[in-house]
């Protein structure tokens, strides 16, 4: 079934808007990567190969804080787990086989899934929304990363500009829209407290992993009550 052109245009302009907003995230990701000790190429490789914002921020944040690669990689994986459920949700609508499925998997993130879900009433529109948003975000996120990384690498001392303070603010901005009910507030507070308690007694990187236990415990509790 062909989509009517006006609906197609509306989806595309929405997708572009989301891409531009995400490009701004990409800008700060690039800058923060450099401030955390990565090279421009390393920041860019993450945006191309990993392409899931929260995991990328976590990986560079933990590496930059001296948390080591095990903690950095595990935290990135834990944060990326939700993308598997997104794939599960959009796969029946997208109906893909072969290489297209491999590409679609890489584009399966918060934004593309949300747009596909928003147009679920019409499968063709949902597919169009997924691809348009995924491609737009991929391109602009990577351009943003490059500009941010190049810009920050021109600075001699990132601390003077307060870039280290931009990192927790970035995580707060990623957390903020997820604090939508009492349960999520409780899990966030408990996760934060566990991490704070673990800072002095564990190696850097472990406090964040420790907070994952809070999510597991809360998840089991919700499941039992249901």
């Amino acid at each position: 079934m062909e989509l009517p052109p006006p609906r197609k245009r509306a989806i595309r302009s929405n997708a572009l808007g989301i891409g531009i907003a995400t490009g701004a995230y990409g800008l700060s990701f690039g800058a923060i990567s450099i401030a955390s000790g990565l090279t421009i190429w390393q920041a860019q490789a993450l945006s191309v190969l990993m392409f899931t914002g929260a995991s990328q921020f976590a990986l560079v944040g933990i590496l930059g804080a001296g948390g080591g690669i095990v903690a950095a990689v595990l935290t990135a994986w834990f944060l990326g787990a939700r993308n598997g459920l997104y794939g599960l949700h959009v796969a029946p609508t997208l109906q893909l086989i072969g290489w297209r499925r491999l590409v679609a998997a890489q584009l399966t993130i918060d934004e593309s899934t949300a747009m596909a879900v928003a147009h679920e009433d019409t499968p063709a529109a949902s597919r169009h929304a997924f691809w348009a948003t995924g491609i737009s975000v991929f391109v602009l996120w990577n351009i943003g990363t490059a500009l941010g990384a190049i810009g920050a690498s021109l600075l001699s001392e990132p601390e003077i500009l307060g870039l280290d303070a931009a990192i927790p603010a970035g995580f707060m901005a990623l957390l903020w829209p997820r604090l939508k009910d009492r349960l999520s507030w409780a899990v966030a507070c408990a996760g934060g407290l566990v991490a704070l308690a673990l800072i002095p007694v564990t190696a850097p990187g472990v406090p964040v992993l420790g907070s994952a236990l809070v999510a597991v415990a809360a998840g089991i509790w919700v499941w039992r009550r249901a």
Partner: protein
Amino acid sequence: MIWLAILLGAAGTYLEKLIGFILPATVLDRPIVRSIAGLLPVALLAALVIVQTFATGQAVSVDARLAGLAVAIVALMLRAPFLVVILSAAITAALLRAIGVAA
């Protein structure tokens, strides 16, 4: 070392994305998987906020980063865009350091 983290991290996050497309829905689509996967980002991101604000190695320290975070939260409450949130935190920290109020 950093490259190893990037490649391992990216391989794992890609597999997570691909699993949703390949595994039959019945394997993954369980209420317990859903509720844990939904809460993981909340707990981890909150922990990252705390650690990146207070940790200096293994020491807990209160410095200009906390002021930056406070300003960022105000910006979020005012529904400011991402870049404004980040910049307001950075500028706050930079100013406090420049006038010698905070480390």
